[in-house]
């Protein structure tokens, strides 16, 4: 399995209402995730978070705060332990998605995707490594916790499984 560079962030679920709005600041839970993304980049200056791990309740809060349609479900289920498997997970979740009455949301725009093309479509910056945030459901995680991660290019796992980090790039581009 590929190594990941990750950071865990904490929040109080009771601070948010059912629509994912912070009860005192009025900010959305999505804004909180954006702040986590900025912090992640700040702490690992050359890296941008590619993956967001959270349990299904937190994913639901994110969906609500992002104004998702009622028939959308945020995040892929992990099928190979606690880390994203870039081939198996999309394949298995894709099969489930095919037969589900809900539509799986595999990712959301990164908070860094601010530049748009002439059609108003956000630009994916491959050079700097800004990609959409892949949503991953890990129900072993506690409420009030999210984990942002990026595949660790410096790890020696590249020699074993070179495809792993390539697949997410391909999918979003």
């Amino acid at each position, binding site marked *: 399995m590929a190594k990941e560079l990750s950071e865990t962030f904490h929040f109080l679920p009771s601070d948010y209402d059912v629509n994912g709005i912070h009860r005192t600041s009025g900010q959305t839970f999505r804004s909180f995730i954006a702040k986590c993304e900025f912090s992640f980049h700040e702490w690992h200056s050359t890296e941008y978070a590619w993956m967001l791990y959270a349990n299904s309740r937190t994913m639901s809060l994110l969906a609500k705060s*992002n104004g*998702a349609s009622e028939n959308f479900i945020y995040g892929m289920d992990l099928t190979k332990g606690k880390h994203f498997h870039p081939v198996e997970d999309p*394949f298995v979740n894709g099969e489930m998605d095919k037969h589900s009455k809900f539509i799986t949301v595999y990712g959301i725009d990164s908070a860094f995707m601010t530049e748009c093309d002439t*059609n108003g479509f956000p630009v994916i910056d491959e050079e700097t490594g800004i990609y959409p945030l892949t949503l991953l459901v890990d129900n072993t995680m506690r409420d009030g916790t999210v984990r942002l991660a990026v595949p660790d290019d410096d790890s020696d796992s590249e020699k074993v499984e070179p495809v792993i980090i390539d697949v997410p790039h391909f999918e979003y581009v």
Partner: protein
Amino acid sequence: MKKEETEERDWSLVRNNNGEWISDRNVVFLTELELTMEKIAAQKCHLPLTVNIGPDGTKWCYKHELDAISAATPVVDIKPYKLKIAKTSPHKTQEMIEKYIKRFEETKDSDTLFEDLQSMSKCNVRKPDYIDFKLDTKASTLLLYIQQKQSQKNRDVCPNYTCRNMQTDNAAFEGWAVCMKAWLPDIEKVVLRWDEPKDFETASESIQHYNRFLYRVMRFSEAFKDWFAVDSSNQVTIEEFSKRFCYLQNNAYGKAPEKPSKEGSETKTEYEMSHTWADQMMTYYNLNVISRQLPIGVLQQGKSFFTGGKSAIDLWGMNDDTLTLIELKYNYGKSVNKKVGIISELFLYACTMRDMVLGIIQPPTKSPTKEETMLYERITSFRRVKAEMLSNGFHPLLDNEAVLTILNRNAFNENIPITFGKTKYDFTGNHLTIPC
């Protein structure tokens, strides 16, 4: 990871307008033409259709939304075009494709709109000669323009239908506005424009028709202000008319209407309904009193302001708080009277009577029948006006529930509401059948 495994995944991700990335199995990419067709179908079925834009400007919609629209759309709607294209020559096919594409251009002319109407209503609706229809598809606004122009049949004549009988297809703007809005989902707003009469054809009667036309326009703009408006070129005329709309009184006949002698006529049917079948009619319309021929010849300071003469409400009745006006149409043999103008007539009658209830138009000083006397004695105590269409056959464009829905969403509801209804009767032998 094995290479074969990566190849098994036959889908990729697409981004929606909300920044969410989903599988392309859930979406359908559409051309502009396909998208326009789907939008029309969605509007027709009142179903949502979310249009998302891809990185290269391509447009796509959710598959589940398109499936729902497809399930709710009758197949016959698109069948004629497909069949025609398949069976005609290449030259003809090109012509048809061009014609088809024209349907989705920024403006639609009268011919295209009436083709759409015919396609939607499945009937051969004839376009009036003196009203020009133009739809601005971007603004979803229909311009309805009553033109004074040279007659095709007699080039010496240049009729202006704003000074003619409101029942005729060329004058019944209310009927066309409501019916076209009901049938064509891409119409949201209607703007009326007309050529001001240059020279009144037969002086006084034309002026009275024109006054009545301006009154209809004034009240229709008030009743449907959220979707109907007068073109800027005619606004001053309406403002001036509203200022001179005062000192008005309804007229009355000198004597009670006589019993008609001609069998099989509308007047005879009207008589029978108010006499022979009065009980049945009163039960159906919830009336205490029923009568016929209530004049609507409004006077201004004793002089005719609206056309007088035969202008009268066919059947009318009342109960404690409701005044009911019935516009009767009778179709028998060659005598066919199925026009969208029934809406225009009924709208005028309902507004005139409502203005009497509100005290804007005064009742006549004396009346020839006890029913009319009773009506005018109680005129200001009515709380609502019911306007009913009653016919043994309607214009096919009226065969759409949306027509009544539109009419009943009028702005009069806050104060003396006017409600519209439609009933089809059957008249076989000597027996009248109206639905229970």
